């Protein structure tokens, strides 16, 4: 890319002399075009290690997915912890959940569920996203604090305005069907804009029944779901800058969770956010504020009946940020900013009439807990030359947390464990304040057109979330309601948790040995002090005192380390990228170790590789892919994590664009290979029906049809 850019630049220099003066000849001298590469150049603040996936790639490679985290697994080093059908949790280089900062349109979304059912990406649909950026590990501190694993930023398109004064009407629409599980959905984006005012409506709906596992795995229970998202964004540009306001509503009436005791039976969330951006001689300003209100309910869907156990969570969040970017010299840019984030959370489980265990009172899991964070950062970006850039920044985040008194369902003998735990919890001071410092330094250097090297170091810190610190139930059932690990075990919070602090070293080597051939290799090492994991408390027994497959654990600080390498490459075999045949491949390996107990860490993706061929000729696209995942034998014995076997999947797809409509057909898991998801957890939905505990099986063969258009 750099090579091309330079060639282009040389050509432009020549053309500057040879072909001057255009339409402006009469009153102004025309200069040749200044080309700005938004990708591929060495740019301060855009790490090589990061990957941005464009809308075209998102739609082209996986037009029929409803799970944004799932499609991110196409990137090396990114995998997904299984959850609901649209609520997978991304994992970057072994670090998952809230260790990763997930930003949707620039705003963080807090967990509003003790099982993390409504993860931030569950509020997005792949079909309506404009871009996804993943920056592993060593992300510049200006991209967000309170994370140790990196940043995932998904965004709708930037507002568009009419360039000729007429009404600009543009958008896209898509629909899809998946044979496995009878999944279907659709999305529409419509923008209407004048020269100064722009409005964009985005809406989507998707639903699916339980899917079938491959081979003889049979139906995977509790995998059905339905949801709809709607948002309206208004933007106005004037002398002072760009003003945006966006509001939206999300509703999911049901989402099964194959690896949880509970299912989501309703999730309603609305938000409104405003943003102002101004570009001035002295610098850029970005001021934003957002409010989100989430009402989350859990109970049992059909596969987990009979039973009744309502669990409700209400969350309000408010976020505001003021960010400045000041060019000090042509070389240096200073970035600084302030952020404030407020989370308020109430989690209560209403009594069940006639139940001895779940009554007569409401079980108060979290009583008006709050987690407020104020952050400040300063970052120096230097563009030493076209081939050398650096970013150095420091950041401070103060996290303040507290919560009110709690209560168990009742005070009978069966509830004794919870009664005592509640009394203990209520007797302690629960106010916790953390002062977290983070820093990052990245140097990117391209010594030759064919080679770029990046070295990065970061120290990052994250404070525990509300559930990690403030859940308290010690009874078997109460503790099994807590946890986003999909292992069926019970978890107890720990008010004495310390923030986890990670030191990461990473390098990225980007090679372009020949035209159309590129290779990227990223080795990394992360050491986490006070990694928030868990320690064993006791085996869980049935009410009759019989042993079970499950244990009770308590959140605890351990030390951990992660190392591995991500590798990706592509080669144009014939023609060009746009019109030709291309080979692409990737490979990822991560090793996560619990240093305190000298054990493997839970849910670490085994070695995996992908190899794909794609061919495009005019309106016709063909693609095939083989994905291979090694067996998972490094498991966390404390959680009874099951081993999973290695597997290989074959996917084929074809698409044809006719009169502006793109029709696609895809055979996913063509050979109907039966396999277990290495990060899928255990199948509680199946277990409650069959009494047999097995890992959650991956999706069997599915023929997916997609249609989309742009206008």
């Amino acid at each position, binding site marked *: 890319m750099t090579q091309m850019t330079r060639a282009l630049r040389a050509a432009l220099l020549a053309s500057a002399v040879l072909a001057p003066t255009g339409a402006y000849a009469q009153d102004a001298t025309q200069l040749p075009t200044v080309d700005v590469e938004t990708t591929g150049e060495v740019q301060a603040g855009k790490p090589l290690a990061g990957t941005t996936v464009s809308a075209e790639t998102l739609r082209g490679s996986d037009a029929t997915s409803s799970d944004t985290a799932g499609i991110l697994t196409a990137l090396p080093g990114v995998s997904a912890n299984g959850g609901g059908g649209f609520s997978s949790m991304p994992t970057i280089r072994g670090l998952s959940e809230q260790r990763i900062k997930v930003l949707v349109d620039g705003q963080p979304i807090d967990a509003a569920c003790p099982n993390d059912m409504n993860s931030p990406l569950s509020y997005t649909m792949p079909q309506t996203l404009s871009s996804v950026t993943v920056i592993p590990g060593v992300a510049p501190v200006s991209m967000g604090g309170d994370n140790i694993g990196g940043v995932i930023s998904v965004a709708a398109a930037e507002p568009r305005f009419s360039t000729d004064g007429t009404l600009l009407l543009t958008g896209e629409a898509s629909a899809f069907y998946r044979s496995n599980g009878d999944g279907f959905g659709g999305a529409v984006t419509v923008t209407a804009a004048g020269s100064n005012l722009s*409005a964009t409506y985005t809406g989507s709906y998707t639903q699916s029944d339980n899917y079938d596992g491959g081979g003889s795995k049979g139906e995977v229970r509790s995998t059905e779901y339905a949801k709809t998202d709607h948002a309206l964004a208004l933007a106005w540009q004037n002398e002072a800058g760009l003003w945006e306001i966006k509001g939206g509503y999300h509703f999911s009436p049901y989402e099964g969770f194959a690896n949880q005791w509970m299912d989501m039976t309703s999730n309603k969330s609305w938000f409104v956010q405003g943003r102002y951006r101004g570009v001035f001689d002295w610098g850029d300003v970005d001021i934003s504020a957002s409010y989100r209100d989430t009402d989350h309910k859990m109970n049992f869907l059909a596969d987990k009946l009979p039973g009744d156990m309502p669990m409700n969570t209400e969350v309000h969040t408010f976020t505001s940020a003021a960010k400045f970017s000041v060019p000090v010299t042509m070389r240096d840019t200073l970035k600084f900013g302030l952020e404030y984030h407020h989370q308020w959370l109430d989690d209560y489980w209403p009594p069940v009439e006639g139940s001895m265990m779940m009554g007569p009172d409401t079980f108060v899991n979290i009583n008006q807990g709050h987690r407020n964070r104020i952050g400040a950062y300063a970052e120096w970006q230097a563009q030493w030359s076209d081939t050398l850039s650096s970013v150095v920044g420091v950041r401070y985040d103060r996290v303040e947390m507290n919560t009110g008194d709690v209560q168990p369902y009742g005070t009978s003998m069966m509830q004794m464990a919870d009664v005592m735990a509640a009394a203990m919890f209520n007797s302690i001071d629960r106010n916790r304040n953390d002062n977290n410092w983070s820093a990052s330094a990245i140097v990117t250097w391209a010594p030759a057109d064919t080679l770029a090297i990046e070295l990065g170091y970061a120290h990052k810190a994250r404070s525990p979330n509300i559930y990690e610190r403030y859940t308290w139930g010690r009874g078997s059932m109460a503790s099994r309601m807590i946890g986003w690990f999909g292992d069926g075990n019970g978890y107890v919070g720990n008010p004495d948790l310390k923030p986890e602090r990670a030191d990461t070293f990473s390098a990225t080597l980007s090679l372009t040995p020949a035209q159309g051939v590129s290779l990227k290799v990223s080795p990394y090492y992360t050491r986490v002090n006070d990694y928030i994991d868990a320690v064993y408390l006791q085996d869980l027994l049935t009410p009759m005192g019989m042993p079970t497959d499950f244990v009770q654990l308590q959140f605890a600080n351990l030390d951990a380390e992660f190392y591995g390498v991500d590798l990706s490459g592509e080669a144009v075999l014939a023609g060009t990228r746009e019109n030709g045949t291309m080979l692409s491949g990737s490979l990822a390996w991560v090793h996560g170790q619990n240093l305190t107990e000298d054990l493997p860490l839970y849910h670490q993706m085994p070695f995996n590789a992908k190899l794909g061929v794609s061919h495009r000729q005019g309106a016709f696209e063909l693609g095939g892919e083989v994905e291979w995942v090694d067996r998972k034998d490094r498991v966390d014995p404390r959680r009874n994590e099951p081993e999973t076997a290695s597997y290989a999947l074959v996917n084929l797809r074809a698409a044809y664009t006719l009169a502006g409509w793109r029709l696609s057909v895809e055979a996913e898991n063509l050979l109907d290979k039966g396999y277990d998801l290495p990060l899928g957890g255990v199948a509680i939905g199946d277990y409650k029906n069959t009494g047999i505990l097995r890992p959650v099986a991956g999706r069997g063969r599915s023929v997916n049809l997609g249609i989309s258009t742009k206008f």
Partner: protein
Amino acid sequence: MSARPAFAFEDREPGRYAPGRRAFSRKGGAIAASLLLNMLLLAGVVAAMRGPRLLPTGERHALVSIALRPEPRHTTPPPSAPKVEASGRQDHVASLPVPEEKPARVLLAKPGATPPSASLPQPLVPEIEPPAPAASRPAPTPSPEAAADVLDAYRQQIWNRILAARPRGARGSGTVQIRFRIDRNGALLSADIVGSSGRFMLDRMALQAVRRAAPFPPPPESLGTPPLAFTVPVAFH
């Protein structure tokens, strides 16, 4: 593995609360209502946009010039004439002429040279001459070819400066046309977006690139009486 689930939740009343798809059909109305509400809002906005403009188009041109730049050379207010009228960027020639820009035209009207016209490009192509410093050339000669050389060399210099100041960290694609004027010392008199990309950040970043590139080297005297006017397209890929 036990034959029965360890936790059967036996003591719960079955069926009292049976959420799921039935619950969903009850919520159908809510979805429809929210959809309708959204569409109504959108319709309202579209209707508003078809109506009177909130901002005269010309304003957008002015807005960039009023940025915080209180230097005395800004004594003349930025052009507020309707330069960027709806005719669009395809045809800038028609939309651009503004009286105050007249001095710029002198730029090419060298003694002996043909007056600026549509056939202008030809006399400007003497020989291939990569970034030759204008200073090294002999003092201004009345020859039109030499004048063209000087212009080209000078143009190359300012283009290089803009290239060096090109925006970093932009996202998205589009082309922005920037028009700017410089005085006899090379200082920037004004810089305006005359062709929008339709994307705010790209427009503004392109404009800032030109502003950051200033001050430019003083134009050679042979180029005529400043201010000199230039346009430059900035293309984001």
